[in-house]
């Protein structure tokens, strides 16, 4: 993200919370934080628990963000927001927290000639997933899927598709929602089955390599501790002392083996970023 993209992003963010902009210039802007934003960005959990306990009028912060530090008015202080800065990450996290579940309806004009008749909207469950391919290294992939809760058909790139539709949080006039046939659980199962099929098509060289590596390293550990044990076997010591040493060695070996599995074992972790119920009029190609 470059500075312009970052600025667009956070302006959209503050607008979404209806935060009043106090000043806005090309080089900086100052914004009044609403309470829920202050709680995410203000770094003052004690203040908020205090305010809530005592029941006094809260006094949320104002923040100034700077985009052209060289052309600031004298005496003005503000934060710069380079990519990777802690503040930007706070804003990202806040957006994720407040953008997790939506319910939206498609809003379109009724066709000419039938202005007053009611139209049905089809229920969809849309989920944005992140798939993480993990071994000792990691890569991610985003997957957006939607399932038609009447027909049960699953479509890919669902989010990208619905972004081009007009959506509203209120049920528009002259529309009604159809009763879903698929419940959430079976819909989720279908989506997950779809993802599993999809992921199995992927190149698995990374996983094969990691597994090979794991086996090699395990073999080294096995042989090392095997010989260590033999070496102890041959030294003359009291039986009890020897057993204790053997036990310790075994514990140590198991720790090492567990570490290796933790480090190398290939796996794919799929988690949902955000989820929506979408009631659509436009049919989507499956």
């Amino acid at each position, binding site marked *: *993200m470059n500075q312009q993209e970052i600025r667009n*992003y956070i302006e*959209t*963010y503050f607008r*979404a919370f209806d935060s009043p902009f106090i000043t806005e210039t090309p080089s900086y802007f100052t914004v009044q934080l609403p309470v829920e934003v202050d709680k995410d960005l203000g770094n003052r959990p004690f203040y908020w628990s205090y305010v809530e306990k005592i029941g006094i009028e809260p006094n949320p912060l104002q923040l100034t963000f700077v985009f052209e530090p060289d052309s600031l008015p004298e005496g003005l202080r503000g934060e710069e927001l*380079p*990519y*990777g*800065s*802690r503040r930007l990450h706070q*804003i990202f996290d806040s*957006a994720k927290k*407040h*953008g*997790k*579940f*939506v*319910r*939206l309806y498609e809003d379109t004009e009724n066709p000419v000639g039938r202005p007053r008749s009611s139209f049905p909207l089809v229920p969809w469950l849309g989920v*944005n997933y992140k798939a993480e*391919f*993990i071994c*000792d*290294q*990691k*890569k*991610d*992939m*985003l997957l957006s899927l939607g399932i038609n809760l009447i027909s049960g058909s699953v479509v890919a790139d669902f*989010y990208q598709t619905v*972004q081009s539709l007009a*959506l509203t*949080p209120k049920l528009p006039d002259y529309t009604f929602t159809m009763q879903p046939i698929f419940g*959430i659980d079976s819909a*989720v199962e279908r989506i997950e089955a779809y*993802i599993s099929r999809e992921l199995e098509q992927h190149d*698995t060289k990374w*996983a094969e390599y990691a*597994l090979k590596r794991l086996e090699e390293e395990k073999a080294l*550990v096995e*042989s*090392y*501790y095997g*010989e*260590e044990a033999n070496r102890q076997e041959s030294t003359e010591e009291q039986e009890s002392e020897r057993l204790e040493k053997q036990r310790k060695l075994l514990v140590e070996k198991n720790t090492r083996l*567990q*570490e290796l599995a*933790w*480090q*190398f074992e290939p*796996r*794919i*972790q*799929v*988690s949902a*970023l*955000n*989820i*929506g*119920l979408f009631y659509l009029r436009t049919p989507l190609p499956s």
Partner: protein
Amino acid sequence: MKVPIHFDREWVPELKKRMKEDGPWNKWELFQLAYQAEETSIVSDFGELQCLKHLPALDPFPHQLETAKRVISEMHGRAILADEVGLGKTIEAGLIIKEYMVRGLAKKILILVPASLVVQWSRELNQKFGIPAVAQKKEYMWRQYDVVIASIDTAKREPHRGHVLDQDYDILIIDEAHKLKNKNTVNYQFIKEIKKKYCLLLTATPIQNDLDELYNLITLLKPGYLGQSADFQKNYVESKRQARNHEVLQEELKDIMVRNTRSEGGLFFTKRFVETVPVELSEMEWELYHGVTNFVKEQYQNTFFKNPLALITLQREVCSSRFAAFDTLVNMHNRLPEDSPARMKVVELAELIRAIKKNAKAEKTLELIQSFNDKAIIFTEYRKTQEYLHHYLAENGISSVMFRGGFKRNKKDWMTELFENRAQVLIATEAGGEGINLQFCNRIINFDMPWNPMRVEQRIGRVHRLGQKRDVYIYNLSTSGTIEEHILNLLYEKINMFEMVIGELDTIVERLRLNKSIESNLIDIVLESETEREVQIKINNIGEVIRMQMNENNLAEGMEQL
């Protein structure tokens, strides 16, 4: 092959609840922003380093980036970082930690360092890398914080030990790892018990005395990697310090150790010029020097001072300036019996000091500074000398700031800034410690010479390091005919230490355990010798011995080849 897939379904009951309760529902704009945030931060391939995108202010050197890359993609996160001193092992470790954090592969991180470096590590990780590392102070911190820095000596003791061994660490980092060379120590056994995924061992000297030390370090990372200890002995060890099968060992080590050296990079350092500046003492200064030297010998033989250290201090102080010696004389005066002849002698010496009006060394220093008309750092071991020089330079129209070991961080930063922007000279009694950047200055004057070569090295290291753009000039003041001259000869001519690049010396000093020996040998020589001539010959002998040891020590070559 089939890779196991795990689905997170925590959101399902949450969605059902909202459906049942008709909300609350989030805004479409925030839903989109959430997706966008995720989209910009995901990493879509295994290889490329991502962390730089998150570190706009950091400008690492190419060898540091290369190292981070190799450790992650070729060494799978377990490695010995063995760069020579001054090449930035901390930066490399920081890059690696950051990369794993950005990729979501590391969260819980333990960094074990010598107690004296805890604060510095936490500052570097926070300031340079935006990594929220905390120095462990209270017991609850082991669990409360994800990135914790502590000393091994703290961590290994209860109640800390229990907390550390109870948790799984995504990354374990150990600085100055050569201290773990002996596998029978409590520290080594403790480290072995820590559960970790990735592990970095940092040391500039992976081998100090024998190759087994390296074997033991590797065993912490990957047991069995070089075979059993016995195999290792058979395959790679010729004698204690000599490796056999260099090429094979070198090949094996490539996958587990990174060692960047100055010589191979070539680009790292500017040139270093060393100049001995002879100083002739005035007649009265000579009288004082001889007076003190004889006094020290007499008193050592009389053994009134049980601890000869005070005498040695006096001998060293008088080489620096009469002011440095004065306080020690006053102290001695007060401790000696009232009617002792020694006390009379002290009074005489003090009178002499009062009578002296000039300081040949200070005059020479002034001359030097005026001749190059550039910024310079003057190092002295003594505060009295420091104060005197500050005053003397001011009298001659040269601005200077004083810098001491006891200064708090803020004050050090402030003094550095004053020196950079307002003053021509910095007068320091210590090397300043890490994190103080004095590279804008390229001239050092050693007003007096520490007897411990590592201290000289640290002084030079302040300016001759990565980031110095100009050639570096070192001026050593040498008072003809004094012990100082002999010591300078030893360090300069015999050990050749000023010609060594940074890092080389500490390797040698540590390996040969010179540090203690040089200083304590010098003390013995000064106290035990009858004549100046004897002192000179004995110091010469040390130089010969060291030189022989250095030549004999094939390990030095072995190390370079590794």
